[in-house]
């Protein structure tokens, strides 16, 4: 069955902005699919609102729509492009939901478009809990006892039948939103209501709890000839009860016997057939009772998923690419195995190593959030590591996680010294401190949390047994025992101390101990350990080949381990350049940086070098083995990177593209004798060191807010007095506005310093004069030391003080005067040259009363690089990478001169999305600490429409009619007057809480009053809950207080009513509505947009 010839054009739907539960794995899968289908000769049309994706690069698809992922827009694209088929299985839940919506509004029938990969019926059977259960029971599979409810009373009746504890899952939501484990009747009603609210179809599934059962996933593929294979089995170390995205998982399954496994395999095939996924990859999840081996099927995703990205990276089998080829009619046996080239893809990969994935959390950004892990996903990223044993891969993953740990403890961090101390002084069971510690450890074992894995080791240290730990944590004894083995070896290393001999060192390296851990345990320096290691226990690199070495493979995909034989490639004649990736996604460092790394690798190849990628994030395009010439799937630590540098003989390392992670490695790498390409480490230091930077600005005569640096409270106080309040404070060398705050007086400053010195010990604290009501501007530029290319000037929509990563922005600026624009360009050029930048530089400015102030300069790739590239049509990361390997900017830009020079009669607006819904305990307020997870872009010929599109793309479509609720701080009311007038003029109703309403009414507006919370009911919360208002405008009264404002914002959030918390954004909304409310949005492909000015 060769590929279909009745198809000419294929529409691929992307997954939109990065959110918790849906991250860059869908850029990886989508990019693979676009590439594969284009190669097959199809015309590929793509829609994805996320500009920070490789897949939306204009040279990828034939027509690329960076437009809102809403049914009406997709229909418009269908109308324009007339695809014969839509492939909805590579864009996550977003694409599946859109496909169903398109079917339901009749768009598919109207334009005679076929869904390939999965039909609507199959999607429904998999997604609709009741249908799913019925289908599974129908083929004789076991599912947990359950029932579906659409009302609270229905839910109560079903709960009665199932008993407690039970699990609530909301239908058609992603990442477990609206899910909960309920232990008591008391908790039940609230959880059920939340679930019903979260579900777009107001439906929840109540399910028997299988908490504590073993959890498995199988990645299955099926083709049109009904041939099925399992690509990978995954076992969750955290048993049922923790969302699989938040669980530590291991591939392949470790504790299943072959008969057990074959049952799951048979059942997953039966499942994919019954659901009716015709072609492609699916993920089937099982719970297995550890006492009887009884398997229950939990859910199936009729599409590629985060787990399939993991399975692809874990085995080398490119699931998404295969899924795309199968969807157009190929059979598995007609496609060659990408890795061996000689054997067919119709087989089941086997591996001869262990893969461990560990989720990365961002609770430091959401301190108020409940940190207990449950069935609603909370992690923002993940790290994967490959080792020859579970212990090795676990320790590698933990040090790759970048939470400051060097492995499984043994690093002097967090609780390690305390526990070490208790053990050292032989504290008995009656010791008060030990008892306290034991209680904490037991609690952390019992209640799933992101530090549980460390507490297993602490538990061993404190004398608990494998049995104790299994009983408390319900984790399988095999895993607990493995951790016990790590602890046993650690004891030997401690005992040997500085006398650690070579056999012991070898055993330690084979169990994944890092040099840093060994230094901590032996008392040697990390350098001494490294020297001994390099001489006696050299690192070896092994290949990932899908077949456990049964067949020769050419794939240049490697991992390090400590074995006898090294398989890394012999040095070729080409010079090699290493690009350091960004590691696990987190807030402030995500897909934007991976986008830059990928372009850097491509550019390096284009310049005739061999590109080598080092990264450990399985969700990314950069860790696709055909992105670079060689991929090393390794943690981004000094030890691991130096190993790669030494083995590959690379000419240098580029740390500029991966965000703060590799940048932090630049100095230690330089010290270790590694050449850093691009901007020098010294220049980076000047930019990051306030004093040196201040001196530079002074020399250049460029204004900047008065500032100071402090290492203690006294210094901070002095500095604050000097620069004047309000003051912006933050620790240096921290990305994403972590721990950044605006303080208005000495008391607040003291409080801040106390907290900051505690959690960021050793880092100097930076203080800047906070420019109130200033406009913030971002500039991205490339410099080769001689010339500077100003790639993009972005005007923030929110005022200064809100983290640039959380602010919407527009390119080109729509309200800056020519003089300001000139200053911005001139300052940027002067600074780039003065810093001798070779590559990218991002500078943040504040504009107050026509004066341009420099806030900070970052001589590295910024979060906005992909946005600027999409908005202008110039591939910025590529240009920068070419400059960094030595090309002149003039030469590199030559092919783009026309694009650069051409008029650009369009606006691009970047908007961000937040994970508020995941953390209902957290206030919905923007501030200097970055909390957004992803971004979207709206692009059109006028600012208002571009803004409107960006809002719709971010999930907060501007309401075209209805009532707007105003609840404002006293000092904000005057500013709100023109906004309210504009809304009234457009025909919106106005409603306000008492004070606000009175003020607006006095000023001649027709506004309805609503009671505050304490004033009785119906109050402001009721009108939001009942959706009597369509938009909430609320400015916060200074954060962290549990004020009315907090409840208003929270209720709006949970009721899915859009909420605006700044005037600047409100003004943008007004403008957006004025310009685009009456008009039908046009679908514009990037390729079309770029020709608008020609």
């Amino acid at each position, binding site marked *: 069955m060769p590929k279909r010839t009745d198809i000419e054009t294929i529409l691929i739907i992307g997954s939109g902005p990065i959110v918790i539960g849906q991250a860059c794995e869908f850029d990886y899968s989508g990019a693979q699919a676009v590439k594969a289908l284009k190669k097959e000769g199809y015309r590929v049309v793509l829609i994805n609102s996320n500009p920070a994706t490789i897949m939306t690069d204009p040279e990828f698809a034939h027509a690329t729509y960076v437009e809102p992922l809403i049914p009406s827009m997709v229909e418009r694209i269908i109308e324009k492009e007339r695809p014969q088929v839509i492939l909805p299985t590579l864009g996550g839940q977003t694409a599946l939901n859109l496909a169903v919506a398109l079917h339901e509004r009749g768009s598919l029938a109207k334009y005679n478009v076929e869904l390939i990969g999965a039909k609507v019926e199959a999607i429904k059977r998999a997604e609709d809990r009741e249908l799913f259960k019925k289908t599974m029971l129908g083929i004789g599979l076991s599912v947990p006892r359950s029932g579906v409810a659409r009302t609270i009373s229905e839910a109560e009746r079903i709960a009665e039948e199932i008993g407690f504890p039970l699990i609530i899952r909301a239908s058609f939501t992603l990442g477990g939103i609206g899910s909960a484990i309920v232990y008591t009747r008391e908790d039940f009603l609230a959880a059920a209501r939340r679930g019903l609210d979260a579900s777009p179809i107001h439906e929840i599934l109540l399910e028997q709890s299988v908490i504590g059962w073993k959890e498995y996933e199988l990645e299955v593929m099926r083709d049109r000839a009904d041939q099925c294979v399992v690509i990978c089995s995954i076992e969750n170390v955290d048993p049922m009860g923790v969302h699989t995205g938040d669980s530590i998982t291991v591939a392949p399954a470790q504790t299943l016997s*072959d008969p057990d496994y074959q049952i799951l395999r048979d059942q997953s095939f039966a499942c994919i057939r019954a659901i009716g996924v015709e072609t492609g990859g699916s993920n089937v999840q099982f719970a297995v009772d550890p006492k009887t081996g009884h398997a229950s099927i939990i859910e199936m995703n009729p599409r590629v998923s985060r787990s399939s990205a993991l399975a692809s990276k874990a085995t080398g089998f490119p699931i998404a690419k295969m899924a795309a080829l199968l969807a157009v009619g190929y059979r598995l046996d007609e496609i060659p195995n990408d890795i061996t080239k000689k054997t067919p893809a119709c087989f089941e990969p086997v591996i001869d190593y262990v893969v461990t994935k560990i989720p990365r959390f961002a609770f430091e950004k959401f301190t108020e959030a409940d940190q207990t892990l449950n069935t609603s996903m909370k992690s923002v990223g993940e790290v994967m590591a490959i080792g020859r044993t579970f212990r090795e891969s676990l320790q590698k993953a933990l040090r790759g996680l970048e939470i400051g740990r060097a492995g499984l403890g043994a690093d002097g961090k967090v609780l390690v010294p305390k526990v070490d101390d208790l053990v050292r002084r032989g504290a008995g069971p009656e010791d008060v401190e030990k008892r306290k510690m034991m209680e904490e450890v037991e609690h952390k074992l019992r209640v799933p949390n992101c530090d549980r894995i460390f507490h297993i080791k602490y538990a061993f240290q404190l004398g608990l047994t494998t049995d104790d730990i299994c009983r408390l944590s319900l984790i399988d004894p095999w895993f607990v025992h493995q951790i016990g083995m790590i602890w046993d070896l650690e004891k030997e290393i401690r005992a040997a101390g500085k006398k650690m001999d070579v056999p012991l060192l070898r055993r330690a390296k084979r169990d994944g101990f890092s040099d840093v851990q060994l230094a901590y345990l032996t008392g040697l320096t990390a350098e001494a350990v490294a020297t001994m290691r390099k001489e006696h226990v050299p690192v070896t690199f092994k290949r990932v080949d899908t077949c456990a070495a049964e067949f020769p493979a050419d794939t240049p995909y490697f991992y390090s381990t400590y074995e006898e*034989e090294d398989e890394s490639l012999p040095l070729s004649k080409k010079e090699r350049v290493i690009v350091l990736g960004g590691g696990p996604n987190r807030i402030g460092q995500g897909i934007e940086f991976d986008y830059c790394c990928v372009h850097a690798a491509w550019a390096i190849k284009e310049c005739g070098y061999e590109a080598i990628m080092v990264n450990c994030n399985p969700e990314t395009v950069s860790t696709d083995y055909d992105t670079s010439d060689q991929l090393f799937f390794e943690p981004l630590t000094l030890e691991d990177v130096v190993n790669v540098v030494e083995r590959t003989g690379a000419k240098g390392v580029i740390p500029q593209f991966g965000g703060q992670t590799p940048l932090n490695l630049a100095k230690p790498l330089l010290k270790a004798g590694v050449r850093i390409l691009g901007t020098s480490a010294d220049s980076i230091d000047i930019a990051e060191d306030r004093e040196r930077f201040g001196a530079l600005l002074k020399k250049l005569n460029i204004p900047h807010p008065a500032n100071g640096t402090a290492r203690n409270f006294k210094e901070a106080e002095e500095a604050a007095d000097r620069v004047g309040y309000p003051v912006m404070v933050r620790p240096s060398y921290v990305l994403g506005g972590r721990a950044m705050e605006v303080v208005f007086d000495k008391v607040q400053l003291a409080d801040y310093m106390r907290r900051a010195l505690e959690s960021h010990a050793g880092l100097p604290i930076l203080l800047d004069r906070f420019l109130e009501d200033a406009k913030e501007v971002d500039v991205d530029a490339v410099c080769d030391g001689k010339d500077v290319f100003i790639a993009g000037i972005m005007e923030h929509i929110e005022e200064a003080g809100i983290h640039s990563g959380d602010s919407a922005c527009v390119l080109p600026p729509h309200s800056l005067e020519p003089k300001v624009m000139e200053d911005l360009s001139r300052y940027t050029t002067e600074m780039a040259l003065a810093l001798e930048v070779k590559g990218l530089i991002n500078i943040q400015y504040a504009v107050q009363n026509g004066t341009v102030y420099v806030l900070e300069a970052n001589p590295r790739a910024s979060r906005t690089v992909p946005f600027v590239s999409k908005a202008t049509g110039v591939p910025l990361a590529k240009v920068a990478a070419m400059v960094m390997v030595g090309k002149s900017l003039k030469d590199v830009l030559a092919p783009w001169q026309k694009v650069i020079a051409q008029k650009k009669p369009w606006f691009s607006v970047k908007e961000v999305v937040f994970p508020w819904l995941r953390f209902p305990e957290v206030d919905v307020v923007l501030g200097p600490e970055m909390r957004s997870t992803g971004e979207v872009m709206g692009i059109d010929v006028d600012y208002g429409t571009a803004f409107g599109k960006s809002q719709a793309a971010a999930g907060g479509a501007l309401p075209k009619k209805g009532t707007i609720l105003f609840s404002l701080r006293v000092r904000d009311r005057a500013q709100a007057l023109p906004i309210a007038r504009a809304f009234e003029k457009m025909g919106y109703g106005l409603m306000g809480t008492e004070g606000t309403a009175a003020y607006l009414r006095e000023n001649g507006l027709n506004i309805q009053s609503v009671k505050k919370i304490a004033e009785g009911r119906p109050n402001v919360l009721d009108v939001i809950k009942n959706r009597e208002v369509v938009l909430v405008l609320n400015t916060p009264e200074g954060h962290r207080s549990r004020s009315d404002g907090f409840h208003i914002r929270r209720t709006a959030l949970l009721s899915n009513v859009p909420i605006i918390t700044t005037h600047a954004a409100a003004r943008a909304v007004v403008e957006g509505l004025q310009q685009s409310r009456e008009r039908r949005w046009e679908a514009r492909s990037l390729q079309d947009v770029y020709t608008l000015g020609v």
Partner: protein
Amino acid sequence: MKARLALETGRVFEGNGFGAVGETAGEVVFCTALAGYQEIMTDPSYQGQIVVMTYPHIGNYGTTPDFNESKKPHVAGYVAREFSPMASHWKTVEPIDDYMKKNGVVGLDGIDTRALVRHLRDAGVCRGVISTETLSAAALVDRAKQQLSMSGADLVKEVTCSAAYPWTTAPAASAGGKKKVALLDFGAKFNIMNSLAGMGCEVTVFPARTSLADLLKTNPDGIMLSNGPGDPAAVTYAIDTIRALVSHNEKAKKPIPVFGICLGHQLLGLALGGRTFKLKFGHRGANHPVKDLTTGKVEVTTQNHGFAVDIDSLKGLPVELTHINLNDQTLEGLRHKTLPLFSVQYHPEAFPGPHDAHYLFDRFLGLMKKTETV
């Protein structure tokens, strides 16, 4: 305890002894199955072989008599990156270490098994010795060289049963009358008998040297040729028996359906006039893609063989090729053009491995039912 594996090629791997203490020799082969280590250890087809598991963690879920594929382990030695010192599974009876000690299986772990597998892949399978005793590398290499080669070795005589016996594991009730199957035991795995019994067949297991006359005396509805170890060409007595069976069937009004698995398949190929040859490093694992040429569909199969039937040698014979291996295009199945004889090189009985090929047992049952009405 230190232990070594020495190969005739001169390569020596030093690791830790595991399981029984002592010295053992055999042909060193590798297997890529991820689980099912106990089924592999007890598969008589591995007689005389030191098996290297490519998956690093072996023994995680311990051992239980339920997973035995014969009465005892048959591997000459067992090698893994790491045997689990503990066992975690609801069915587990004892950890793999105890099991190997009790059954005298010498094991080795802690070595770079991937390097060993790459060596075997490039050099071909070769003879080797594991020893926890003699630690001189040179002496061990010499010993490896002195071992008998697998080519020309009849290992069936070491593993077949000594006398015929009925397979009594409770068979499932059958709908359409019990079929009597005579199984020639060349080293049969339990699950072949179990699979037949599970379909309601009455299975009698016969020693490999049983004559055709003795088989026919029991009046079987079908004859099963089992898997087994060693060089098929050396099992001349079995080839003679099968050849006689084929000519009996040619003349018989009611031919007796024959189903061969693995060695049984090779012996049928030889009896029909084909040739066998030794593969460089064999097929051992649970992920090999096999295409059923009659349906065009691919199944994922369990494999364990070092020899194969030469496709070219079948030209001009009344034989149809039914299955091929998609990795290397070698023969995986054949059937007689006119008689109800068919065989596959792989293991439809699984254990370990996928159940994809179970339909072959149905096909066999179908043939037995069909010939009834002839």
